[in-house]
């Protein structure tokens, strides 16, 4: 168990290291001049010397005037000091502050969507594996949901419930007429705005989870131990119960592998609903070529996904006796 976790931690540290290196490398080694790009976008001034001054300022900020290894070390140093640069789009707010404001919305959106879709998907997938009739309805529906691009489902939901029926707001995290406070009115407004983006994330993910669980259970029901129980005349209930418990384990690891896709789904869902999380921020950053902000978002997404992965690993170790009882290596 210790070895298993140590191995995982090592992989995550290595991944983090590589991610940061990519984050540092991309603006420096990609073709084109990001600072020049940025300035032509943001500067209203056509004064050449003013632009040159700004260029020098930002070059210095990037540290582009230093030798590469020095730049790299400085990058790490400022990273640990929580300094991710200054947003040009929301000048002069530091990137870290901009992101800090957005992150709670992401957690608020993603955590319930992931947990509930995982739970419901597994339940329904297990049911689908049990009965032919339900299999013929739940499974095709799950495949269609899983094939739906996140943003399109978001668009459809917001069009139908927001525009046609007019019962849900289609933009923002709470009503613009309210100030954030701990009143029932405000909390109600937050939930009201939260529901549609949550629902569209939930639905796509539900499809994927249900398919995964259905296929895993069918696989487990064909396994030798299920067959043996059958030959000993064990009731279907017991056999299914064992199959479900075995199938849930790969569903936990499967969730870790899907996190990236879910996060990407959240990004575009936020864009559809103008929900002020990282995704919405990112769109603005891209449109305004705010490179510091893009890089900051990148790092935050990576760190978030790594932390979530690690949490799932720990859960997995706790629920699988094979890893819990000190077996090393992978269980694939």
């Amino acid at each position, binding site marked *: 168990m210790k070895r298993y976790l140590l191995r995982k931690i090592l992989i995550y540290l290595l991944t983090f290291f590589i991610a940061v290196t990519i984050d540092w490398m991309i603006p420096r080694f990609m073709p084109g001049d990001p600072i020049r790009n940025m300035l032509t976008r943001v500067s209203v001034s056509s004064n050449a010397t003013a632009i040159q001054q700004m260029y020098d300022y930002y070059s210095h900020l990037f540290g582009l005037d230093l030798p590469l290894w020095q730049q790299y070390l400085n990058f790490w140093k400022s990273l640990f000091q929580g300094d991710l640069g200054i947003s040009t789009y929301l000048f002069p707010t530091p990137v870290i502050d901009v992101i800090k404001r957005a992150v709670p919305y992401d957690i608020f959106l993603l955590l319930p969507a992931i947990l509930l879709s995982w739970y419901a998907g597994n339940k329904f997938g297990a049911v689908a594996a049990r009965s032919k009739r339900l299999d013929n309805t739940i499974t095709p529906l799950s495949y269609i949901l899983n094939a739906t691009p996140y943003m399109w489902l978001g668009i459809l939901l917001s069009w139908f419930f927001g525009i046609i029926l007019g019962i849900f707001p289609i933009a923002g995290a709470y009503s613009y007429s309210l100030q954030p406070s701990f009143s029932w009115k405000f909390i109600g407004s937050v939930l009201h705005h939260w529901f549609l983006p949550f629902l569209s994330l939930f639905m796509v993910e539900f499809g994927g989870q249900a398919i995964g669980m259905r296929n895993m259970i069918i696989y487990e029901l064909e396994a*030798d*131990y299920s*067959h*043996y129980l059958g030959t*000993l005349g064990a009731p279907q*209930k017991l056999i299914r119960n064992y199959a479900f*418990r075995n199938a849930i384990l790969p569903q936990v690891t499967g969730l870790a592998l899907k996190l990236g896709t879910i996060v990407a789904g959240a990004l575009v869902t936020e864009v559809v609903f103008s929900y002020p999380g990282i995704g919405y921020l990112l769109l603005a950053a891209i449109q305004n070529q705010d490179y510091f902000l893009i890089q900051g978002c990148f790092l935050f997404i990576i760190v978030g996904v790594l932390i979530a992965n690690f949490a799932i690993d720990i859960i997995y170790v706790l629920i699988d*006796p094979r890893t819990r009882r000190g*077996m090393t290596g992978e269980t694939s």
Partner: protein
Amino acid sequence: MSLQIENLSVYYQTLKGDVHALEDITLDVKLGEIMGLAGESGCGKTTLCQSLIYLNPPMKYMTGRVMLNGNELPIWDAEKMNQHRFRDISIIPQYAMNALNPIRKIGPMIRDLLTSKKVDYKDRLPELKHRLDVVNLPHDVLGMYPFELSGGMKQRMVMVLSTLLDPTLLIADEITSALDVASQKAVSELLVKFLDEGCCKSAIFITHDISILYQIANTITVMYAGYLAEKASTETIIHSPRHPYTKLLIASLPKIGVKYSEKHLKGIPGHPPLLLNPPIGCRFRDRCPLAFEKCTEVPPFVEIEKDHFIACWREGSHA
């Protein structure tokens, strides 16, 4: 009489049509008998035993009946069979190493199974522990997960579990094929011990290795391509077989004291027929050195001497 099979036919359903895996099997196993069931792979040995205990799709029941202790077994009815499985008829499967739920401790798993059979685990526990002693497993295994046991331990665990309710008939499906020679002998002797201790009242021992049967079986039944070829006492099958297929099978066995550099081991030329569209008549016809016109009809499985059955036109009363 422990087991009586009459005219049992079982097919496999596939998209391309029915595979005639078992045809018109009539067979008895007496109380206290260990019957060896031999034949090439794909001859229907395992299908025969599977259909006695767990006839599930794509297997399809066609005709025949199976009596155990004088009562008919509803082998075509998966639900009704449940009350007979484990209690009256049980199996040590080929895949014994993977037969236990990997994420449940063995003791609780047995408890789940017994509870579902309305048997009290605590009542049975002393006997369970006694049998663990018989197969030389520590009592601690009940608190362990299957992955904490070695392959051989898992197999012995399955032997204990399968016979825990003292079935009338125990089927041992290729339980020695994955083992080395020393363990083969130990495992097959355990089976005899189980019978002596009353853990089961009769047994069918499936194998393609006749030399093991020589050590433990009372009788040997030889199958070929879905049909029974010959059944007799072990002595008779080994020393004076009558069916041409049995003769070739016995002749292909290595014999002690014979130098094989001089005399090559002879296989049987040719292949068994495909059972999707089986040939008419005796299925051994194409490979049989003695085949003649009569062999285009299916030979009946008849008793030519006391307790010696054979299906061949060349032999016995037909000749």
